[in-house]
């Protein structure tokens, strides 16, 4: 069966520090991968999606970037965090033709 991991689970970082959040998927090949941010326990904002290694699309301009160095690994990064980067970050995967997405447990980021 497929599983998706995210780490760390929680993170507190000062403004201006770098960020690296990791997401890995097991039990499937060539998944579509997604990064979302959820602010204030409400709606989800799609940040990035990827259909393959080194194939990343950004949905909104911002202080973040994403990379996919391996088929089942998706990394969210920032060189310098802003207060507004605080939130709950969710990674998800899907398979082409299967439509639904499956979410990881999330990372709670607090920028202080």
């Amino acid at each position, binding site marked *: 069966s497929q599983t998706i991991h*995210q780490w760390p689970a929680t993170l507190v970082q000062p403004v201006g520090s770098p960020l690296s959040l990791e997401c890995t998927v097991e039990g499937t090949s060539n998944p*579509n991968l*997604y990064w979302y941010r959820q602010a204030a*326990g*409400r*709606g*989800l904002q*799609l940040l990035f*999606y990827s*259909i393959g290694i080194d194939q990343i*699309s950004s949905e909104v301009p911002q202080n973040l970037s994403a990379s996919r160095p391996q088929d089942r690994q998706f990394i969210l990064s920032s060189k310098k965090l802003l207060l507004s980067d605080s939130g*709950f970050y*969710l990674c*998800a995967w*899907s*398979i*082409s033709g*299967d*439509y*639904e*997405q*499956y*979410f*990881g*447990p*999330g990372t*709670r980021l607090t920028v202080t």
Partner: protein
Amino acid sequence: AQSVAQPEDQVNVAEGNPLTVKCTYSVSGNPYLFWYVQYPNRGLQFLLKYITGDNLVKGSYGFEAEFNKSQTSFHLKKPSALVSDSALYFCAVLNLGGYNKLIFGAGTRLAVHP
């Protein structure tokens, strides 16, 4: 452009009573619709989807949803609510632009009271 709306920020229901969480959609063409649930500080869990076929879709944990094309709605229902159903519920529609991107509603918080 595709979109979904969840008109209620919060729904309150007594345990044992039926519950409905509302969702309306706007798409060009046939909609692909989904419901997800999120418990506090957790990721979203897939409940059910409508792609084609029967208008009544059954999903996990006793939930079901009714697709109504004339009313462009996809309301989530459960005959008898449990306190453990208390969570944040999201309706979503598939973005027909590709890559299985989903467009989520703002979410509805369900509170089931003992």
